């Protein structure tokens, strides 16, 4: 009688391969994050030609500031023109102030809030945005109320940064569709199925023209835009301050 020895096979077990593959797949599915582009959105003005109407900004809605670089990452603003009788008129005109100066920022916010646009103007923009989102031609809805009824939409107000900073001082208006709307709030039209469909921010009519010294760096522009947006200014112009004497 011969005793048979168990033979060693040349294979290795791969039954756990699928477990490992799925474990890794789930790990990467859960932990992967995609890099999202975030930044300051900006709309350049239309190219000047025969069809473009020249926009004249009223002196009462215009603030002109020259931005200068003052060392690395530090910028100063010189107020060239401020709306008459406003907070920046007497105290700060003709004087260099740091861009992060709290008095300058409070002055900009006060000027902006005093010039908050009417809710009707915001509603009109919202109606345009809704027509674009729905892909219908302009003028399909006679007004916002009829659009809300026709499309069975919900009107929502999202409070903005201004209300957070100004608290009870933020100027508010009662609107029949949205209720109480403060300066800087976002009006949103939502749908039960798709969620947010269109939105518009109640902006200020204040226009701030930023004149940069040519050697001021790009960081200065972002800092200036950041200060303005945080204080409720969304309408800005960007240009270069020409040096006196002509040669740069």
């Amino acid at each position, binding site marked *: 009688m011969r005793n048979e020895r168990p033979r060693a096979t040349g294979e290795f077990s*791969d039954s756990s391969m699928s477990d490992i593959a799925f474990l890794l797949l789930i790990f990467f599915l859960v932990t992967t994050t995609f890099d999202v582009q*975030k930044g300051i959105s900006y709309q350049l003005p239309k190219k000047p030609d025969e069809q473009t109407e020249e926009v004249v900004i009223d002196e009462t809605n215009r603030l002109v500031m020259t931005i200068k670089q003052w060392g690395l990452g530090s910028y100063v603003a010189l107020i060239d023109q401020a709306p008459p009788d406003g907070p920046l008129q007497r105290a700060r005109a003709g004087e260099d102030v740091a861009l992060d100066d709290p008095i300058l920022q409070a002055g900009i916010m006060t000027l902006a809030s005093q010039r908050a646009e009417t809710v009707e103007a915001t509603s009109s923009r919202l109606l345009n945005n809704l027509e674009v989102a729905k892909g219908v031609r302009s003028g399909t809805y006679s007004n916002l109320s009829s659009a809300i009824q026709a499309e069975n939409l919900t009107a929502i107000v999202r409070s903005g940064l201004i209300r957070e900073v100004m608290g009870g001082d933020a100027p508010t208006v009662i609107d029949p569709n949205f209720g109480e709307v403060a300066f800087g709030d976002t009006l949103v039209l939502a749908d039960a199925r798709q969620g947010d469909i269109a939105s518009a921010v109640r902006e200020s009519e204040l226009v701030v023209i930023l004149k940069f*010294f040519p050697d001021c760096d790009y960081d200065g522009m972002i800092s200036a835009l950041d200060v303005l947006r945080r204080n409720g200014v969304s309408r800005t112009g960007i240009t270069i301050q020409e040096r006196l004497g002509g040669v740069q």
Partner: protein
Amino acid sequence: MKFKRRMKVGSAIGSSTMSDIVFLLLVFFMATTIFKDDTGLRIRFPQAHPQVMSELGKENLIVAVWIKQMNPGDSQSEVIARIGDYDLPVDQVAVQLKGLADKFWREQNKHLDVIVLNADTRVPMSAMVGLFADLRYEELYSIQFNAQELSTGI
């Protein structure tokens, strides 16, 4: 009379070659992978408050433009841009973008929605304002200034 037993057919798929294939692929990719040299794009992003920044929707058709100086910080240094894999002088960016926008429209019937500017913080404003003027001339109006979120509060 005894019938011959039929041969049984195994239902398992042989997986012994799996490890060979995996290792072959691993060695192939290890040997052939090259990492793109991104030294020309190394830029310092500006910072902005998170609440003033907006996020672009996934459905937006965007083109990213990288802008920096050859010698960052030197105001006389040439400003260069990169679109995709191509480096070009900053004064040619608007024309190239217009060409791209026309191509998107011709081939895919899509509008170029947003131009994302990834510019170095040290680029002088004279170059940037020149670029804005060129973009306006080419009727490209919607732009986004990319920035990193400020970690501090208001």
